[in-house]
């Protein structure tokens, strides 16, 4: 009886838009769902540094190089806030990292695609950050306080990244044929993975219903995807590129763009680990972690020595 009461009170708070804070009572499933979602999000930020990092040394101007470095650094910062937000739920960063390195934890599948030309830096900003913003703006109102506050900060930076990415593409589209070709090619490769970022269709999305009731999620996958496509189709026109979907067409009656079927077989293959870069991405993370072990250990030992010395001196 008592449990039901607590759970009712919890749901009443959520319905009244009162934020849940770390020390408040929450159902185990709510906690688990958040840990899974926030840590996946944190991992996505960290793994997401790699495809863009691939172009730092080849950035074409000093201004672009600085902007790219700053963007990737922002992603590292987002990873930090998100790991911290997850830690308020009682899970340690080291455990989350171990799950990432062992392959148990997932991250956004989009980062398992390769970055082949400089246009990919623009396209990732435009589409990948664009889709991320669509997903994340509702998370600023998420029922869990620390996550919602982290997302407010993240969203501000992401919208800057998106504009920056779009501007890279605009510049290239004003350039040579070779540059225009790179932009169109990048769109061809990133379009379908980007619209898959919203996740499976609503009917196939196992966690959605409960997450909506708990106000972790505010809009369904399909609603967000539609919104993204509507906005992006217009931006593609301004850019002068063709979205690689022959079925993409404005539907006057619906007030939305119609679009073709996502290849969900490919999506699930990449989730399972069979994308073009799954192995490299995970290996890069593991390698950085393993090669840094002696550094972290030395820092810990040094801090202990210093603490002891301070204690003796006191």
């Amino acid at each position, binding site marked *: 009886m008592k449990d039901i009461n607590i759970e009712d009170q919890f749901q009443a708070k959520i319905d009244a838009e009162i934020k849940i804070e770390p020390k408040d009572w929450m159902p185990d499933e709510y906690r688990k769902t958040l840990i899974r979602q926030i840590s996946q999000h944190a991992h996505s930020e960290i793994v997401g540094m790699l495809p863009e990092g691939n172009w730092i040394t080849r950035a074409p101007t000093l201004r672009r190089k600085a902007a790219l470095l700053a963007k990737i650094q922002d992603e590292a910062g987002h*990873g930090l806030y998100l790991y911290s937000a997850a830690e308020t739920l009682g899970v340690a960063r080291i455990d989350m990292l171990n799950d990432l390195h062992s392959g148990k934890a997932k991250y956004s599948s989009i980062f398992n695609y390769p970055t082949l030309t400089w246009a990919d830096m623009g396209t990732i900003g435009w589409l990948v950050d664009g889709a991320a913003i669509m997903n994340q703006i509702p998370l600023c109102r998420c029922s869990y306080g620390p996550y919602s506050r982290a997302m407010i900060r993240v969203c501000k930076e992401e919208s800057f990244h998106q504009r920056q990415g779009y501007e890279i593409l605009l510049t290239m589209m004003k350039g040579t044929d070779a540059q225009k070709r790179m932009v169109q090619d990048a769109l061809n490769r990133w379009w379908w993975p980007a619209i898959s970022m919203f996740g499976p269709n609503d009917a196939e999305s196992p966690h959605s219903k409960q997450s909506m009731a708990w106000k972790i999620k505010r809009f369904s996958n399909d609603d967000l995807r539609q919104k993204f496509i509507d906005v992006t189709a217009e931006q593609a026109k301004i850019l002068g590129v063709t979205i690689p979907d022959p079925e993409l067409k404005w539907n006057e009656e619906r007030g939305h763009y119609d679009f073709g079927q996502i290849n969900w077989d490919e999506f699930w293959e990449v989730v399972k680990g069979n994308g073009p870069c799954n192995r490299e991405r995970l290996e890069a993370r593991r390698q950085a972690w393993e*090669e840094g072990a002696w550094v972290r250990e030395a820092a810990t030992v*040094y801090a202990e020595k210093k603490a002891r010395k301070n204690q003796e001196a006191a």
Partner: protein
Amino acid sequence: MTKKEALLKYTLRLADNASILGHRLGEWCGHGPVLEQDIAMTNIALDLIGQARNYYQYAAKLEAAGKTEDDYAYLRDPLDYYNLLLLEQPNGNFAHSIVRQYFFDIFHYLFLTALMSSKDKQLAAIAEKSIKEVTYHKKWSGDWILRLGDGTELSNEKMQTAINVLQTYVGELFLMDEVDEMMVKENIGVDLAPIKEEWTRIVQEHFTEAKLKLPDATWTQKGGKQGYHSEHLGYILADMQYLQRTYPGAVW
């Protein structure tokens, strides 16, 4: 060599130092030993690239040939690059990167402190702006010298190995050539002899605390300031200049 030519070369050396070390640090981005340090290294890379841009922009003004900052960074051959050899050395493990950084940071800090009094107003202004950043760089790398030198046996060993490997490039930091001498005479450039003395004192003191040894100089590798580099610079520039060289005239 005219004074103007010397000043241009002097400025390009400072620009190349910042650009090449910034480039090397950028290679760490996403691969650091822990997230916080990944962020710190990218921060320093960003500071250095910002400084390089200030110097390159000034060089463009001095040369008055309609060049941009990117013409200097992206369209010069290795023979026309003037950075110190130390800064183009590969990242190696974290110890190598820290020692390279620390050796340069102490030098850089002392150098900029002196450059702030340069008769050349633009160089003095860039130095004044940069020194705030470099004060942080030297604190960051200095802290790591202590942590890793006086951390575990393994970390001490890795640090000492890195020091022994990189020590041969230290002498070049203080070598004066015709350009330096002309700039010192004009009260524009920095006399490196007192800097060397101060650098050695600071580093030795710090190393003693960190249980590390600064070996006696046996041989100094030199040539970077004059455009004669190690094999590494060619690869750095092959990456860096790839797009600009492959698509001449394209705007990015």
